[in-house]
């Protein structure tokens, strides 16, 4: 689950060396929009899902246009703060339209399945399955399609890619749209488990960011592994120590990984240029 959101950081990072620090708010956006379409307007689930994904892709494009492009082209690190600013605005906007209170999200799959006396929700199974499937799809898209190759070219050397006729800003915008879309899927998947609330995004975004950093921002396989590992460690700590210690241990882990292996588990040591 974190892996899915974390992959969004990875996509924009490799294409443009920038990322949406408010990726968590896109998760929240996915949940809120899906809730509004499904419950507010009474759309059927497949239609609501499509609508949500379209809305999120558009949101990603807007984030890129407003908060990233002016700084990405100038090589300024201000994108970090400008995306945070957009996230703050999004959270407040959601509060005003959606209300501050958390709401339960109806899911077509809430009936527990009983297997030999132990019950679990199909939703809990669905998340890793959909997550892995999407990750595989993204990898396939990235490595096989012409469009993915364009993104890769931009990732290698934006200037050269631009000279070869690739529209670099558009490629970056596409990466942002895709990254927000992934976050939106995560939001829809998570909504029935957690409750839908404007404040739900921050901590998810941070944990996904932690996963992305641990796995190595430039390494998709590293991120997938880190996502699974982080989830396991979290539930282990929550089970054996306390739920409160979960965040402490999780983020201490991030610091430890960064100190020992600053480029992440799956990344390569960057060489420095003079």
């Amino acid at each position: 689950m974190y892996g899915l959101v974390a992959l969004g950081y990875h996509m924009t990072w490799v294409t443009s060396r920038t990322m949406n620090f408010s990726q968590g708010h896109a998760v929240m956006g996915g949940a809120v929009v899906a809730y509004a379409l499904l419950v507010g307007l009474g759309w059927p689930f497949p239609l609501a899902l499509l609508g949500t994904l379209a809305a999120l892709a558009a949101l990603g494009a807007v984030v890129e246009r407003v908060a990233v492009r002016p700084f990405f082209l100038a090589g300024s690190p201000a994108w970090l703060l400008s995306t945070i600013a957009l996230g703050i605005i999004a959270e407040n906007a959601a509060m005003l339209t959606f209300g501050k209170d958390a709401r339960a999200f109806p899911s077509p799959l809430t009936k527990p399945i009983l297997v030999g006396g132990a019950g679990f929700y199909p939703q809990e199974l669905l998340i890793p399955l959909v997550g892995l499937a999407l990750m595989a799809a993204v990898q396939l898209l990235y490595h096989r399609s012409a469009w993915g190759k364009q993104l890769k070219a931009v990732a290698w050397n934006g200037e050269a890619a631009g000279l070869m006729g690739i529209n670099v800003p558009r490629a970056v915008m596409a990466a942002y749209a895709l990254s927000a879309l992934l976050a939106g899927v995560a939001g829809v998947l998570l909504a029935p488990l957690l409750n839908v609330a404007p404040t739900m995004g921050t901590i998810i975004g941070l944990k996904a960011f932690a996963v992305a950093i641990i796995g190595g921002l430039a390494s998709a396989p590293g991120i997938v592994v880190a996502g699974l590992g982080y989830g396991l460690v979290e539930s282990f700590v929550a089970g054996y120590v306390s739920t409160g210690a979960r965040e402490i241990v999780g983020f201490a882990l991030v610091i430890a990984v960064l100190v020992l292996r600053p480029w992440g588990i799956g990344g390569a040591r960057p060489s420095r240029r003079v």
Partner: protein
Amino acid sequence: MARAGWLALALAAAALPLATANTYYIYLGASVGLLVIVTAGLNVLAGFTGQTSLGHAGFYAIGAYAAALSVTRLRLPMAVAVLLAISVTALVGAAVAGAALRVSGPYLAMVTIAFGIIVEGVLVEWVSVTGGPGGIFNIPKLSLARHYWVIAAVAAIALWMTANLRRSAWGRAFVAVKDSEVAAESLGLSAYYVRIAAFTVSAAFAGAAGALFAFLNGYISPDSFTLQTSILFLLVLLFGGLGQIAGPVVGSLVLVLLPELLTRIADYRLILYGTLLLASIYWLPAGVVGALRRGRRPTAAAGANSAGPSSGPFSPGGPAPSATGAALTVERVSVAFGGVAALSEVSLEVPAHRITALIGPNGAGKTTLLNVLSGYYAPDAGHIALAGRPIAGRPPHLIARAGVARTFQTAQLFGELSAGGNVAVGVAGPRLGGLLGALCGTPAARRRERELAAGARDLLAGLDLTSVADAPADSLAAGLRRRVEIARALATRPRLLLLDEPAAGLTPAEIASLDGQLARLRDAGGPTLVLVEHHMDLVMALSDHITVLDGGRVIARGDPAAVQRDPAVIEAYLGAAPAAAS
């Protein structure tokens, strides 16, 4: 002008409790003061040193809890509690910085965010000490007006300290590692260590503010120290003006008072913050203070000729000339980048107090060799000795301290500093003096500052640069930038000076003057010079000794006349030599 403004501000701040009896206004004033203290500290880190922290609420929290606990549990007096809180946060800050500053950019943001969340988590979980989610009650308080004055005084001291720091060798070192880490290290500064110092100072400021916050409210809980608080700190600073001494004041005033004036739209407060943050990034890169300043003052006149000592005979003031012989020995050094050999088994002897030129076609490995000599690349094999001591593979700042200075192919000046400031960074090198002395502007620190400035002036005068001493380095033309860079490298009193294409981009007149200056430098018994250069006139006229590289190998060496006749050299430059055709 500026001084009068500060005085008026101080008077207005001091008079607030006399002018109004409304405790709410005084409380707001105290809040502004606290925010000023935190953001003045953050300014040292983000403004001067260019590192973003999104975890300063964590230090604010540690200061508050340390002070509250030492008063409620240990029964210490308040003043002692505040000092204790500052020390504790400074220590924690140094430890966090040691871990966090190995990384930069988004990674650093993550580490600081993680730190803030861990602190918040510990405050909630460690109920027996911190009181858990409920926090700590019954912290003794002063009367509001008296406490307000204490906060205002500390805020004034905090601003005064950052102003002192900005003018000191430390302040210049902070800016230097921000503007060009590579160049700062070539002058002997450890960027890592300098950043840790900045981080520690900013943590200590946040701790002081946290302690005063605990005594202002009499009650603290984890709710006050979230990620949102950290973001607010950064917003205040960005809005007021990153790197501007007055930035924290303007930012704090606006961001505390604005929501108060607009209570009717309290629901929109986050949108307001977000928009302000976005707007200040877009339109106010130097904040409100920076924008005002730019509007009022035209750019500094570069031609203002300050009356310094006239350019007398050049005195390099290097170390006493040691016995002649090899200043630098390079033995069978090899470097490969991903399988491509950039240097293979290069051996070289550079005689002391002479000018040795490295020439060769593009891609021959000349600049790679300089980067190996100055420590930016570690050689894969081979030995390098500086006056008999091995230096191969050591980090750049230690090699610089051993006496190797260099310039870069594209001059890397610290753009935010003046030309004189750039040279002063070199004069000070790693000897930055006491950090506390720099903060407080002690007489000893001031004296040292005058010595550094005088040293920088002399060096600039020696290269006929007195007229640009006060000009911002960013505003200088290419030729001047190169000369300032040479002055800065000389300022470290090097044994060995590596010049990477010093004549590139210079006018013929400037090249002639450079020629004269380098010759004078040698004749005055200055540092040993190694020159990478494409201007053959300059190389042939100046060099005592030439080494020719091609494809990462030494193909010829000798005095200029011999090298010019060498068939291998002619072939490397012109293709097959006519003589070799027969």
